[in-house]
């Protein structure tokens, strides 16, 4: 049952081979058994989950079920979930119980899905390893000494370890795709504006986008059919007709024009990753796709631009956590300024504070033009690069990350090294494009320094990134699905919990 797809689960529920309560219990039990060592969840509340499961069973009994009715789904802890703690992985919100549901949660509730729990994450989604969580790092189920990636590391771990059939995440600079790649699962970052940000705690408003994590492209499509949609409460939500994200799953790859960006195979890419990605490209060619080189000349500027724009927005977005109305307030202080300083100093972790400082600096009088404005210009250049590339190809294919999962603590001392793990993912956010990551092989991390002496397991997943033009989600999912019909990387389970 843990390896069953969403379609199979839905069929089992519809045929009454299992009830939602039984299914939810199975996963809750597995979480209870495994999560002590993996730390994928911040909050699990069996009573609440089972109450939803009972309601789903009534709905199924009345024949009113949909594709996700009764299926447990885990949610990243920055989607506000009414009555649940919604902490964003921060001490600042450790005591915050959400009074309303995010749009995404509303959609899953309306579909009859069961909230399985709230997943671990880098604090306020700032990180690529899950190590900045106030609740401790989540662990990679392929090797618990390695990170699962971040910031949606808890969601990725939960899905990879079969503790949840599916999960939600958010992607500001790679926070869905990178952990999906590092844990051997699939993750989709939709076009900016496709999934409402209402109730999704902001890190960098112009880059943040919610999306699904699951074990196959087909399941991502089913999840997108629930998550996506216009929401008037988010002014950046795009008003478009509802679409079926599964509509291109059966479309053959023959004739697909694949663009391969030279810049994504340059220095810094682990050879084992390059080889796995190349093999995936070869497989797609065998299915009838053609390939050509494309240029994304400003790729090298994407990380610097990203680390100006994202912190700038974050520094402002996180100003509301001031200890005045909710969240953490220092127990003792002398005056107002002292209360602000102590509450924010103790409520935020080091990475969040680093980004607030950077963001405050780049917006300051006298520096705005040199940093923020210049970064915005680069952002436009990067979007133009993609626009040019998509004149000559349908999908851009490359690695999701430069290497496989690294060890806990390996990059925490050097933030820039950590930021460079986002090199292939941030440009997509800057341009607002859709992209997904699917597993395409395994590596040993041989070129990633200390990770080469991995003590057990030894094999770590490699992710293949597919980038599409605006609103090309269905096409991306179709290509990924066709690839997955002929490969079994996505069916490999980590050596845990058997």
């Amino acid at each position, binding site marked *: 049952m843990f390896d069953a797809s969403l379609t199979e689960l839905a069929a089992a529920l519809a045929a009454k081979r299992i009830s939602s309560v039984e299914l939810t219990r199975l996963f809750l039990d597995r979480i209870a058994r495994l999560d002590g060592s993996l730390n994928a969840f911040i909050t699990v509340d069996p009573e609440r989950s089972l109450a939803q499961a009972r309601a789903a069973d009534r709905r199924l009994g009345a024949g009113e079920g949909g594709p996700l009715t009764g299926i447990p789904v885990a949610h990243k802890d920055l989607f506000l979930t009414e009555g649940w703690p919604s902490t964003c992985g921060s001490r600042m*919100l450790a005591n915050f119980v959400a009074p309303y549901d995010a749009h995404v949660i509303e959609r899953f509730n309306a579909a009859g899905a069961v909230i399985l729990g709230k997943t671990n994450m880098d604090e306020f989604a700032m990180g690529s390893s899950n190590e900045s969580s106030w609740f401790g790092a989540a662990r990679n189920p392929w090797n618990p000494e390695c990170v699962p990636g971040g910031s949606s590391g808890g969601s990725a771990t939960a899905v990879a370890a079969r503790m949840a059939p599916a999960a939600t995440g958010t992607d500001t600079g790679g926070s869905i795709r990178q952990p999906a790649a590092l844990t051997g699962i699939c993750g989709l970052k939709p076009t900016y504006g496709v999934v409402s940000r209402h109730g999704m705690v902001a890190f960098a408003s112009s880059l943040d986008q919610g999306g699904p994590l699951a074990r196959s492209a087909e399941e991502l499509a089913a999840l997108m059919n629930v998550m996506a949609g216009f929401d008037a409460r988010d*002014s950046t939500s795009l008003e478009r007709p509802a679409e079926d994200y599964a509509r291109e799953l059966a479309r053959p790859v023959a004739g697909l024009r694949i663009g391969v960006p030279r810049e994504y195979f340059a220095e810094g890419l682990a050879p084992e990753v390059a080889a796995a990605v190349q093999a995936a490209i070869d497989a797609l060619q065998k299915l009838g796709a053609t390939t050509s080189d494309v240029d994304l000349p400003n790729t090298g500027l994407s990380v610097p631009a990203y680390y100006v724009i994202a912190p700038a927005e974050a520094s402002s977005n996180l100003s*509301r956590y001031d200890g005045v*109305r909710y969240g953490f307030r220092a127990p003792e202080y002398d005056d107002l300024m002292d209360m602000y300083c102590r509450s924010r100093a103790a409520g935020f972790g080091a990475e969040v504070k680093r980004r607030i400082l950077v963001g405050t600096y780049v917006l300051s009088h006298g520096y705005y033009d040199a940093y923020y404005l210049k970064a915005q210009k680069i952002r436009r250049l990067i979007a133009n690069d993609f626009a040019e590339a998509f004149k000559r190809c349908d999908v851009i294919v490359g690695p999701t990350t430069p290497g496989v999962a690294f060890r806990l603590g390996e990059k925490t001392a050097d933030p820039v090294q950590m930021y460079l793990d986002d090199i292939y993912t941030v440009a997509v956010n800057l341009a607002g494009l859709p992209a997904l990551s699917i597993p395409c092989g395994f590596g040993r991390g041989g070129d990633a320094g200390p990770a080469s002496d991995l003590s057990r397991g030894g094999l770590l997943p490699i992710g293949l990134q597919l980038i599409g033009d605006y609103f090309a989600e269905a096409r991306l999912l179709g290509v990924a699905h066709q690839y997955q019909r002929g490969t079994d990387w996505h069916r490999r389970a980590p050596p845990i919990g058997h």
Partner: protein
Amino acid sequence: MDWETVIGLETHAQLSTRSKMFSGAATAFGAAPNTQACAFDIALPGVLPVPNKGAVERAIRFGLAVGGEVRRRSVFARKNYFYPDLPKGYQISQFEAPIVQGGALRIVLPDGAEKTVRLTRAHLEEDAGKSLHEDFHGMSGIDLNRAGTPLLEIVSEPDMRSAAEAVAYAKALHALVRWIDICDGNMQEGSFRCDANVSVRPAGSDTLGTRCEIKNLNSFRFLERAIEYEARRQIAICEEGGRIVQETRLYDPDRDETRSMRSKEEAHDYRYFPEPDLPPLEVTDAWLAAVGAALPELPAAKRERYERELALPAHDAITLTASRDTAAYFEEVVSGLAEAEQGGEAQARAKAAANWVAGELAGALNRAGLDIARSPVKARDLARLIARIRDDTISGKIAKEVFDAMWAGEGAADAIIERRGLRQITDTGALEAIIDGIVAANPAQVAEYRSGKEKAFNFFVGQAMKATKGKGNPVQVTEILKRKLAG
């Protein structure tokens, strides 16, 4: 040395929408603290702004009314600073691309002179909440009812040269925002508040001096006194050879002085940047045209029309266009009068209506402290009264008595005239008989008049009016008296 004061005003007009600038919470004044603050207003995690179309429309209306440029794409920006009554830690405002750029306002000074004040810009923004420092015993209370209330900040060029000019500008602006129905103008409730930028320079100089910004000016009187105080303060410093320090100052009405709030060095770095939660605000040509079409005739145009078409003197035209209600009342009197008379001279009718609306009625309203919209004498009824003067049924003097009775609720003019028997005596024979009697009974005064003392004539008019209980037609009485006394 002679000094010139230079003043520019920044005015916050609270837009009269029922809900807030970016949330659905109500904007009504006076609710219990924090009862009109929704998730967005208290800045919960995950909330997002949605612009209020009504507020945008009011800003467009203003832009059109002052002849400014209404930007097709304006940009919201975040103004970042920490304060407990600013829940998000930033205010959503507009910075580099405000919705209205430029424009001008024509003002009338107390001596009747007129002047044009240029506007720099007007932009949309949200208000902050309120910090309450009393009654909390060492703590501060926060009321977020006002947080998120829509404001239009209207910035003038430094075109005013005296406190009186600044007040005239503020009054004209106040009248305009009410005229175009975008702000209720209630200054006590803070719906219309001004900050003044004041500097001084030697008369004849064309460079600006260092300015101070004075805050907390919530009445025209405070505005005037604060500027006067501040100009005196700055001139005194300059005359002693000192330098003005750029700073923000607060007006204290109890002490009638301004005092330093924060210096330029202490000023915040607001770290403005485009609000990423909001795409640029688009105003389509169609929207602009629709708002323009729904705009009422503006006070300046109306005033000009009154002078041109109705031949009213400037001071009448200004008084009658002081508010939209006044102008509407006046126009209803004019049309009521036209209906009652069926022909006749339009400009004379307008002048008669103007005299009554700007004279007797304005005085009565002023004494009663009433707004013209709540006048006990309705425009149609006043028109009927004026018609009775113009058709010689009653004299102007009697009309005042009738007006008082109408004000007191005694009914329509005709009914009062009939009931009180106030109809004018126009029967020449009857008047001649009465006047013959008076002339015969006062030979001494007759002699006096005939010896050249013109003043004695008034005695006879008075006697004639007394004898007719004021109902003798004054024109006829005068004519008959002149004839009889000429002897």
